[in-house]
């Protein structure tokens, strides 16, 4: 398994949806606002309860331990179905 960046990418998708653009059209790197390694490490904590709030240009993002993503207070999507990338 490689580092699980699924949650980071889900946040990118959520922000793109809020901006009404494609994920590759966001004009910044999310890494400038939240350490993706930290997000991966949090995702790997199975039985912990946590919530992380951070700011990106124009939006406040909250990510919770059960995989919920909130942009400006609105629930965007669950990430329960996100699986770590498996090595082939």
């Amino acid at each position, binding site marked *: 398994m*490689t*580092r699980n*960046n699924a949650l*980071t*990418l889900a946040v*990118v998708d959520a922000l793109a949806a809020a901006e009404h653009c494609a*994920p*590759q059209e*966001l004009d910044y*790197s*999310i*890494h*400038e606002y939240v350490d*993706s*390694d930290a997000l991966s490490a949090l995702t790997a904590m199975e039985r912990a309860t946590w919530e992380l709030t951070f700011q990106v240009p124009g939006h406040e993002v909250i990510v919770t331990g059960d995989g919920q993503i909130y942009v400006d207070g609105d629930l965007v999507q669950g990430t329960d179905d996100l699986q770590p*990338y498996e*090595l*082939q």
Partner: protein
Amino acid sequence: MGLVVARGELVFSWPTVSKSTIEICVLGNNSYVTMTGTSTLDKREMIERWDTVFRSLAAEPRRQLVVSLMEAPQDRELSLPEAANPPSLLMEPATLYSELIHVHLPVLEDAGLIEWEREPLCARRGPQFAEAASVIESIHANADELPRSLSEGCQRLEAHRQRQNL
């Protein structure tokens, strides 16, 4: 040896910031000063560079990009996501594209290992590139010694292993 009566630190700020520990010792009627050879700050910086290099290489697409840049001429810009797509993983290009922009390229750039541009997406060697390249090179040179759990299924390492066994 002898009784340390005073211990202090000397900080040199030119040409590079470095710090040495000095000790004034008394032994019999003689007193002398010792100074540690390698300064604490230099050591700390060196250890931080190792940590940064290993953190930077802690993802397959990042390792693949470093290898691709090693194999290309020094000043060549490589197109992405192709240059970062590991043959043993083969990620979906759209996913890899997003992951590169939002995770991998900023990590490598922060470490000084690469420079990159977004339109069109490409990368070239950064000022500290040699740090990552030398680590990968050492691994390749010893591909034969690596445990199977690290080398089996990795096309790069298996190619190096075969070359060593010729």
